[in-house]
């Protein structure tokens, strides 16, 4: 089997006020079901190694993690090579329940926006309160970025991970580059001390 490539082949931009890079490929599995069911919590812990996240949060451990997408939807991350195996485990665990796990790894592009100005770059594009005291590490927000739907996740190292549909990867990259163009510092957010926690 050929190597799986990302939409932009891991394009990068580092000439501006934040580091923009397309990352991946990432394993991504959509889970739809009753998120409060005990077996969902159990499976989450067993398969991804993290607790089922609370509303608006993402829990992660290494390359694995789970993000809260909606009251009946989770997004599970894992290394891309493990998708089939994880999917099989989920299917087995969800058998006889009204719970659905579907592989959506190919459906999305994932970007990393890093650097002390990362918040500003995203605040130019998304109608989200990104003030350091309001948008804290571990938060995961589905929103609009430019003219397309996306999700943004603030990681423990202070960088943002951004998810959008694969077809608009180039649009998103162009948008992020423009928002990070040299000389476009806004100076709105108080500089934060970079947090570096293993787990958030």
């Amino acid at each position, binding site marked *: *089997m050929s*190597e799986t490539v990302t939409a932009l082949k891991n394009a990068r931009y580092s000439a501006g006020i934040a580091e923009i890079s397309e990352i991946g490929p990432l394993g991504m599995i959509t889970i739809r079901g009753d998120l409060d069911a005990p077996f969902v919590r159990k499976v989450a812990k067993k398969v991804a190694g993290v607790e089922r996240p609370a509303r608006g949060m993402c829990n992660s451990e290494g390359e694995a993690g789970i993000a809260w997408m909606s009251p009946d939807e989770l997004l599970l991350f894992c290394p891309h090579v493990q998708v089939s195996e994880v999917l099989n485990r989920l299917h087995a665990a969800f058998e006889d329940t009204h719970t659905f796990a579907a592989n959506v790894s190919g*459906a999305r592009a994932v970007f990393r926006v890093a650097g002390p100005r990362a918040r500003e770059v995203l605040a130019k594009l998304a109608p989200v309160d990104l003030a350091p005291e309001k948008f804290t590490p571990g938060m995961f927000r589905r929103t609009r970025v430019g003219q397309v739907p996306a999700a943004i996740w603030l990681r423990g190292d202070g960088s943002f991970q951004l998810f959008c549909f694969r077809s*608009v990867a180039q649009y998103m990259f162009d948008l992020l580059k423009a928002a990070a163009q040299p000389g476009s510092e806004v100076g709105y957010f108080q500089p934060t001390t970079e947090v570096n926690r293993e787990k958030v």
Partner: protein
Amino acid sequence: MSTRLATGGRLLNKSAPLSFSFNGKQMRGYEGDTLASALLANDQVLVGRSFKYHRPRGIVTSGPEEPNALMNLGQEGRFEPNARATTTELFDGLEAASQNHWPSLEFDVGAINKHLSRFLPAGFYYKMFMHPRPLWKHVYEPIIRHSAGLGKAPKAADADNYEHFYAFCDVLIVGGGVAGLQAALAAGQSGARVIVLEQSPHWGGRAPVDGGRIDGASVEDWIAQTLAQLRGMENVTLRERTMGAGVYDHGYVLGYERLRDHTPDAPGPRHCLWRIRAGHVITATGAIERPLSFAGNDVPGVMLASAVRDYVTNYAVSPGDRTVLVTNNDNAYLTAIALKHAGLDVPAILDARVLPQDSQLVAQAKALGIRVLMGQGVSSVQGSKRVTGVAVCSQAGEGAVLEEIACDAVAMSGGWSPVVHLWSHCGGKLTWDKARACFRPDQDHPPTGADGLGFVTPAGAAAGMFALDDVLHDAHAAAEGVATTLGFKPAREARSPVAERREEAPMSPVWQMPQGASVKLREKTFLDYQNDVKVSDVRLAAQEGFVSVEHAKRYTTLGMATDQGKLSNINGLATLAGALDAEIPSVGTTTFRPPYHPISMGAIAGDARGDTFQPIRRTPLCEWHEANGAVWEPVGQWRRPYAYVQSGESTHDAVMREVTNTRQNLGLLDASTLGKLIVRGPDAGRFLDMLYTNMMSTLKPGKCRYGLMCNENGFLIDDGVVARLDEQTFLCHTTTGGADSIHAHMEEWLQTEWWDWKVHMVNATEHYAQVAVVGPNARKCLEKLGGMDLSREALGFMEWTDGELGGFKVRVFRISFSGELSYEIAVEAGQGQAFWDALLVAGHSLGVMPYGTECLHILRAEKGFIMIGDETDGTVIPQDLGLNWAISKKKDDYLGKRAQQRSHMQDPNRWKLVGLETTDGSTLPDGAYALGRGENENGQKVVEGRVTSTYHSPTLDRGIAMGLVLNGPDRMGEVLTFPGTDGKTYEAMIVDPVFYDPKGEKQNV
């Protein structure tokens, strides 16, 4: 002579001289100048020609309310029309040109219009529009279009870029004058998140010019201290050069930040549009001085009194050696005093009031040796291109000249109007303040939010408080009140500063000077400088019956120019009230609408330009298509190859080649854009039975079925192949454009109507790259890749299977939209390109060629397959298209069933789908109508059908088409007439829509 003074200029950096040009003439200024102050310093009093009469006009104000000094700035990609000289910061190399003059500013042919003013009265356009019509087209319009107008439209693409910024705060303060700063301090000390927007580059507003003492310190010192304090607060953000442009529902406010206008060569975006959500908005927007209505009040050199002292104090500019001050209030005396202190002459102060005793400021002016003439005013201003003197009269009289005073500038003040625009944008009401003769916010009727409570509070001068001490107290109280409402506790150390009080005599409203001015004077008395509206025009409108202020505004165009009547509104409606013999508050005001002051189109567009104008959706194979001659067709937001053009070919040639090759050999289509919705759950079958007209619940796993989807009105909205993946799971293919809307449609029914059904949906459209492998050699090609048995026996028509092909994990659907042997193969998106490449290699000896959407269309049209969007347009039901076979008779219900039983849907005269074959083999024009017999009741020709799809078929070597025709299926063999828009008439015979392989033998091999 206006000139630069040797000393002073609090905003200037005299060590940084700058050069700029005006109408090609080189001039000098300093860092800190505005273009207006620099022009005055260079004795450029005449700065433009008026809109209608081309009258010479000069700078009137020192701020954003400026009506006259509008400039064309820059060149090419940086050209900008209608820029206000008063808000344009000077930079080295700035190029400005005056507007609306021809051939030159000094000598303007259009000025002849002023002699025609008798023929250009209020409502001129409306009157002329009526009759006689030919005169309008051939005479009025060409001449008036040429002579009336302001800036030119830019021709080159904008060289700069723009951005937006989303900010959230508890308290947003618009205006960084002393009121705004004090409000920020009080709100900030309570712990609230505060943003303060100031439109100019300087903090403190006009307080430093007007003077006074706060807490024993000079105003300037207090501002510096307060700013330092605010800058030290983490919860307070100060943005200068950022104007509060508009207040909208739910505390949404637009701020317009001009980042690079003053340093155009610095890197970064030019403007930033702040999109702010505020818990509460405080408008500390100050007040604007009103002009006085006297004859010749538009002669260059007549300025607002506040502007005169701004130019003297802030920019060390003298507007003239001798300035006559005309006023109806005490405040304007500050200008006479400032001029005197700068060593300039004030020959007289004409005060329209008669005060029983001298107030503090009157006494001060007299002590400086200024002649104060009480109860007097201006009869007319002398001079045309600049002021040479004033004729003095009694305010109470009709304008008889008492004396003439030579001067080169006139400073006028008719009192102050609070800037209520932002308060009013979202519905805040106004009240008439009789004592100050102004409209101010009616704080009992604020704009209200979702909770029914006010979300805007005015502070300081914007609330109608004009004395420094009142301004500060009001701002402090407003901010603490707002903070408390939002749940913050005012800080214990917070207190309102105390300012020195200046005793002022009351102002006296003056709406016309002199009060009994003759018609002759009124015809030279301007209300709206920018649109050339005079007192006589408003009176004429009233006389002609325009009693509503909104009507009179539109009839006269008062307040309709780019300054939105900032100077003219109150004077205009007072004039209207006078003419109607009504009270000002009963006449009311016109509506205030955002933006407060024009903002750039670029800032509104933000990032939505160039590459990011719109998101373009690209498939995983997009790059390959681009490199291989793809001509693009937009389908929804996707870009799909229309055809792959090889060298020496026209696009049409390429399409013909692709059709023939696919029919004879092997074609590949990028079908990745088709929607792929996975529907799963115990109730999935039941759910799909409701959504599709067909029965889907009976489909066996491993099988595919073509389905139709209708909306609740019975109209066909989408079609596609449904594959049953397992007992509980279906995969629904949708059209390219329908993927998102059909997903939303299905989710909506699921969530709002059948919320208790056990069904989950996932939109997996983009997880897959999907390739259609089509043509007689399709199976051979896939066999070459190897790994799966795709024989007729192993995978029959309308079946699917999972497996591995050439090492790729694939799902293979044996479905056909072309009538040929065809497989659609899905792989994970990230494998798409590699899989496509493998197909090209395997198909090399089998005549493989990619094909685009036009070929796809021809292939399906030859087979009589309908296309959503061609054969359907939102008014077509499946029965119209002969698709009754796809409508289940066994089901009790499906979406659209009930609607399809309505009498109109059952009407046998609904146009129905047929094939159309031109009698001469030509191709019918798309959308052409078939002529019936006679004319309808409107005298139009009767039509009885239309073309929905039409192509040249290379397979049949003739034009083929589909169309909807009255009683079409019953009229096989009849010839219809289609007039084209090209002047030709086409004839086509009604035939079966299936032109190619009607028995379906080719797809089933």
